[in-house]
């Protein structure tokens, strides 16, 4: 950047200089002289990160968060567009323009309150939402600078105010007078958490049933600590408890009790199903049951939920001590697996993906971080089989090279195998991260509930299922989706549920 025409770009590098720049800009704005041109000239604020070498050996969070000066500088980049196109890009329509404006004003409390009108988990979403294909993709600043990575960093700003709010004593949301209605929430992922909070706020008695011994869903067993500190999720769960939501762990709906039993025998008036996807796909290639082949779900659960990275030092769950790892897939789950393998001490981690980087569904930031941490990308390649030794241990993965052919139904160019292009990579561990299907347990145990051909629950626009009083949302409805979409559905479902219960109460009262 040195030597560019804009003095601001060369200036804002040290904290001192940033402070000075912020003061100048604020003074200019107060005098009414801060033009679009000036705002566009403010350098995009990079988020401080742990050094790539250091973080290969720890599980602490990679991105450290904005300082106050950075947050305000970044917020001043926002043009306060009349039509606020960013909001259209947000699945839950957070009032982005206004909260960014509040940060520029230095009113962080207000910014957080504005976000919380639409999103209950800003500290999570600020960290894991794919902003570059949501709000930030639409941002006028990015479009003006012809680079989506130069859009206003809405996610980082969201995280900034959410973290300030977390460190302060966040108020426990008010709960309405008891309605006498009982709500069961199945699954404690982001959708379940939001549905529980909203139903509880309406005064219903709410119980969350969770199969695992810890609540939080994918946020605790899937997404690693270095990307989403578990303390954040714990705090959200704590808030639910303080609101009076009951959380019952080790309870597998369909096995411990069925939905029918919950409703007919245990007196639940309404149910939200948010059980996630939860059935790992395998490739159906030779060698997939060898020792050292994991689904990403297993690998990440061992590492995150069971803390296998502390094996022998407080944790009893083992995990392969791999030297050379192949991860198959190109989504967030694949990046998380690869980066976890790095942290568990692997010397070589290969990421094998059958399309090109452009088609990767992972967040751009995760791809970038994975590369920084030394993960080697093998693009346009796909496994043909996995080879083992006499003891059944993985020794190599055999891949085929691919090229991009005609676009398929999704509009993405279909990868086509190049015949005879087989080659082998020597590895001791293979992690398969090619997606999740719907877990069939609820389907098998809930007659009357309708599913589509992929096993996802069918719902209407209000997240109502085919069964009266039963609502559903998140990955079990959408297929593997995102935290924010699950949250959004949890909210829609809770609204429909609250309405249903109000109606039910009315008819019940009229009946007596």
């Amino acid at each position, binding site marked *: 950047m040195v030597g560019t025409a804009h003095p601001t770009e060369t200036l804002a590098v040290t904290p001192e200089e940033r402070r000075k720049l912020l003061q100048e800009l604020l003074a200019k704005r107060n005098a009414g002289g801060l033009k679009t041109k000036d705002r566009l000239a403010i350098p995009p604020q990079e988020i401080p990160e742990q050094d790539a070498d250091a973080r290969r050996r720890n599980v602490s969070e990679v991105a450290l968060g904005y300082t106050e000066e950075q947050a305000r500088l970044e917020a001043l980049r926002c043009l306060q567009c009349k039509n606020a196109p960013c909001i259209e890009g947000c699945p839950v329509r957070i009032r982005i323009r206004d909260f960014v404006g509040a940060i520029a004003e230095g009113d962080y409390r207000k910014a957080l309150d504005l976000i919380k009108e639409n999103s209950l988990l800003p500290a999570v979403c600020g960290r894991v939402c794919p902003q570059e294909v949501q709000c930030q993709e639409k941002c006028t600043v990015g479009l003006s600078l012809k680079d989506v990575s130069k859009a206003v960093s809405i996610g980082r700003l969201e995280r900034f105010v959410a973290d300030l709010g977390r460190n302060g004593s966040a108020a426990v949301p008010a709960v309405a007078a008891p309605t006498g209605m009982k709500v069961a929430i199945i699954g404690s992922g982001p959708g379940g958490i939001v549905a529980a909070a909203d139903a509880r706020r309406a005064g219903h008695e709410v119980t969350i049933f969770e199969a695992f011994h810890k609540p939080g869903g994918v946020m605790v067993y899937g997404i690693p600590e270095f990307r989403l500190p578990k303390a954040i999720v714990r705090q959200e769960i704590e808030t639910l408890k303080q609101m009076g939501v009951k959380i019952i762990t*080790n309870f597998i709906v369909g096995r411990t009790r069925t939905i029918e039993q919950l409703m007919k025998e245990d007196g639940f008036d309404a149910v939200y199903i948010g059980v996630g996807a939860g059935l*790992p796909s395998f490739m159906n290639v030779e060698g997939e049951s060898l020792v050292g082949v994991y689904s990403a779900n297993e690998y990440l659960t061992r590492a995150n939920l069971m803390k296998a990275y502390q094996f022998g030092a407080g944790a009893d769950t083992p995990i392969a*001590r791999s030297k050379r790892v192949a991860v198959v897939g190109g989504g967030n789950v694949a990046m998380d697996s690869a980066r976890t393998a790095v942290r568990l001490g692997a010397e070589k981690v290969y990421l094998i993906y059958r399309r090109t980087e452009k088609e990767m569904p992972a967040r751009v930031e995760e791809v970038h971080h994975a590369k920084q941490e030394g993960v080697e990308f093998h693009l346009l390649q796909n496994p043909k089989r996995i080879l083992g030794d006499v003891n059944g241990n993985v020794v190599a993965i055999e891949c085929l090279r691919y090229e991009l052919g005609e676009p398929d139904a999704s509009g993405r160019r279909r990868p086509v195998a190049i015949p005879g292009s087989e080659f082998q990579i020597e590895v001791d561990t293979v992690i398969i991260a090619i997606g999740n299907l719907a877990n069939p347990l609820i389907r098998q145990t809930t007659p009357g509930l309708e599913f589509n051909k992929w096993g996802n629950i069918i719902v209407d626009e209000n997240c109502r299922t085919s069964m009266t009083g039963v609502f559903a949302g998140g990955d079990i409805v959408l297929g593997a989706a995102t935290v924010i979409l699950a949250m959004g559905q949890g909210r829609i479902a809770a609204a429909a549920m609250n309405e249903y219960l109000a109606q039910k109460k009315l008819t019940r009262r009229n009946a007596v």
Partner: protein
Amino acid sequence: MSHRIVSKKQIGPDVFWARVEAPLIAQARRPGQFIILSVDNDGSERIPLTIAGADPTTGTIELIWQRVGKTTARLAQLNEGEQIANVAGPLGTPTHIARFGTVVCVGGGIGNAPLLPIATALRQAGNRVISILGARDKSRMILEDRFAEVSDEMIVCTDDGSYKRKALVTEPLKEVCQRSPKPDHVFVIGPTLMMKFCCETTRPFGVPTEVSLNTIMVDGTGMCGGCRVEVGGQAKFVCVDGPEFDGHKVNFDLMIKRINAYKRQEQQAYEEYKQHQCKVGLGN
């Protein structure tokens, strides 16, 4: 939810029995199902144990386990009145109980525990039950009396001959298969190798043989795939598709390799645990 140990005793050299509070599981469980437990909430491993019995009226289930590693050793250290932090279940597909005719139940060592509820249910369904129980030696023979209550015929043997007949279970199993008429169905639960050889024994006779597999598990709900085995050339998840499978189709050799995947790490953890126990004077 609380999972208090109501009563507990040692029933073999390294074998323990406990009755544990778990009212919902006691009510819902069917023969063949199992639970997953962890001794405490942070750090401890999740392990599957079959439900050996259940009493819905007292809301308790019976667990039997062998002390083979750190988790089972810690479980053995717990006293009556103490809690097991997490018990989740019942998991797995219940045993398909039908009126087969004559059924042979083959149990090996600790495998007798999960086999007992199956034998009981088979008898209740009107089958003639022949129980073949095996153990390494006399001290390791468990639940013989309770099998006697539900069996029409009992064949008990030990590897070393220290109790009743000196034989491996495959020997009497073969004899029973040679009878005329041959048995209609066989259930085998025991060490993986024993199950493998029992399946080889019944295969030439064409007697359908079901085995209950005990693989490594994490969640127990089909989410991780860590429990997968090859059955008839296809990957199956033991925790949801099983634990019982057609033994003639199971790839036992691969399964044995998979269950030993963490042997070294597990042994290391167990050794460290034992040393620590000795230091604080709790070892036994």
